[in-house]
């Protein structure tokens, strides 16, 4: 069974996954929105594979009161190479679709899973790092905190909402697409 080629339909689904992964490069992957009475429209940190967007300067200005390090693109080395990793993954997926070999698909799924877990771990590491390594001379003392990857967190009068962006959903969809051949061609 293992040596048998994947069906054309499966190959098509995997190719579709490659397209989704590739297009995810142009969408935000993760974001955080801060709300407070004086910021009813919310302040944003929006993370793309290769850049940060949103009201970063304002968030940094506010965070300096609790002694948090400033967010900037230079502070996240990942942003310089993440796009190549994702691009590479898209390319591998495309190759899998062309080769139509089950073994390669298993390898791709494995790689995908490990990459995903690493990504989640990395994000969690940064959140932990920023929330707990606060300057000892900060004007306002707060207990160290770790915002969730998805969900709500409250700090002083700010409610923060962390959420997955379009890019993450695209990659999740791509993951579902590459799992389907496991059923289809079992």
């Amino acid at each position, binding site marked *: 069974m293992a040596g048998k080629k994947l069906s054309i339909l499966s190959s098509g689904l995997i190719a579709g996954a490659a397209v*989704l992964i590739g297009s995810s490069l142009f969408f935000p992957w993760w974001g955080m929105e801060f709300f407070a009475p004086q910021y009813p429209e919310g302040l944003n940190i929006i993370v793309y594979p290769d850049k940060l967007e949103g009201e970063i300067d304002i968030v940094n200005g506010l965070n300096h009161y609790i002694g948090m390090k400033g967010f900037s693109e230079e502070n996240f080395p990942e942003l310089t190479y993440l796009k190549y990793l994702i691009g590479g993954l898209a390319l591998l997926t495309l190759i899998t679709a062309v080769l139509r070999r089950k073994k390669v698909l298993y390898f791709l799924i494995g790689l995908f899973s490990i990459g995903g877990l690493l990504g989640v771990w990395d994000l969690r590491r940064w959140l932990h790092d920023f929330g707990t390594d606060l300057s000892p001379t900060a*004007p306002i003392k707060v207990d160290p905190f770790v915002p969730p990857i998805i969900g709500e967190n409250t700090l002083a009068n700010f409610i923060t909402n962390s959420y997955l962006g379009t890019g993450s959903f695209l990659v999740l*969809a791509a993951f579902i697409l590459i799992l389907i051949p496991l*059923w*289809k061609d079992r």
Partner: protein
Amino acid sequence: MKKWIPIATGLATGLLAATVFFADFSPGDRNEAIAESSKNKTNAEKVYVPFGEKDEYYLFASGGHSGQMFIYGVPSMRHIRTVPVFSPDSATGYGFDKHSKEMMGGFTWGDLHHPAFSETNGDYDGKYMFATDVGNSRAAVMNLETFTVKDIIDVPNTSGPHCAAFVTENTEYMFLPTRFAVPIGREYAPLDDYSEKYRGVMSAVTFDEKKEKLNIAYQVALPPWSYDLSDAGKKVSKDWAVMTTYNTEEATTNLEINASQADRDFIVLFNWKELEQMVKDGKYDEVTGQKMIFPEKHKGGMYLVPVAKSPHGVDVTPDGKHFIASGKLAPSMTVFSFEKAFKAIENKEFAGERNGIPIIKYESVMEKEVNPENALGPLHTQFDEQGMAYTTMFISSEIVKWDPKTGETLDRVPVQYSPGHSVAAEGDTVAPDGKYLIALNKIAKDSYLSVGPSHPESMQLIDLRGDKMEVIQSAPVNPEPHYAQMIKADKIKTITVYPKDEKNPDAVYSQEETRIERKGNEVHVYGIAMRSKFIFDAKAERPDQIEVKKGDKVFIHLTNIDFDQDITHGFAINGYDLNIEVQPGQTNTVEFTADKAGTFPIYCTNFCSALHQEMTGYFLVKP
């Protein structure tokens, strides 16, 4: 089994992607439902603008001798902002920082009379507001992105441009005629020589939008009369303008009596396109550095229209076909026709000349005299969307609505005491809105809590939407509400932060670039203000101190690097009579001589955060 799994997962994936891309989670629009229910409202409901909603109109009210402009919301009549124009204002640092101090030119007050919006095709475009100073003969322009004054010019040869500013259809010119005749150059001349040496000079002022600078294109040496009010033509009359004048008696003392003797005074009717051409053709004299047209030497473009004695207001109808003058001392309004005037000029139907200017025969240009029964002291006229006229009656304290086409009185409403001007929503454009009219009342009595002998002036909001005019709100206001203009709120597009200007040599946008440079006895500080600190020199042991020697000339360039809504910082030096403001993203400069030795704390005057109190530093002056 085998087949539907991929189909189902495919559909699920598609739905997920479609939700992410196309779903609209924004809340729906509920404003339309609210707008429809205005009938049967009580007066309180008609003017109530609940928290979270905004007024429909901005009202820009002149502050008279306060030298300021007051901004209100209509219909709530809430005072939103005071904008200093001709007077210093320590709340905003106006008159203390370098730019505004230079604009003030050493004056400490002004008498702001007639505000005027910039126009495009005869309609307000919401870009700029002009104003004139009767007190010290100046003109100013305010930018409506920031509500700050950008330029002020002194208008030479003129004393008290009362009847300005009025703006032509596409803001080509704003004309500033003088109220007090003076000799050219404001030089000394005895009053016995009044008729020969004195002049009521009118200036044609232009505005360069790119540089935000006012300029004088040319002047006209009108006869030594007092010019009172004016309006620019519209549509068919767009190249023309009108202004009323009194004291054609050329009296030099006790004007109350002596300037009220002649049975007729004049409206000056002029074609500014023709005057412009005369200047191009060199038909002018160079006087005190200005291109001055003398009507007795260079004929053309100017005519006099006889009008009932001591006229006050003159207003052009929205269709541009008529102008209506109100006789302060003759209890009637006179409707004149531009078309008749053009014909009379063509046919030379003149009744002689005054000071070299042809007088058009009254019968040739007058259309009708309107005299509502017992209405006394007509002053100013505004218009609604149907072209109906609303005239303030100073003496009989009322607004009279009438039809300029038939002269018929349609409605009258009393107001609490002596209205001067009134303003209708976009009421002096080619397309008035109707809806609201505000009577600007000069004298108020018994309406509000007493504040001593001088009562608060007031503005009364009149609803024009029903069959009858109705006063629906009254508000005490800062002195002196002289004239005002009302603009639809959505025409004004303000900014929330100043954009970065990388070309500005005085700006520093990061802490690392802050520095203090000394050049001889000049000290230049390039500093930043941010929540909640000043940094003047990031590398210094104490980045928030400035040390100079007594007698040094100090330049402090301060940039607010908080690019955040409403995080305005102030900068004051304790005991040095200095306070300036830097709005978000703005760079501002204060320039002064450190003439007092000692220790002077610096602090932020504009509340900026919980640690605003700690936003301080020291200014040390070595003896």
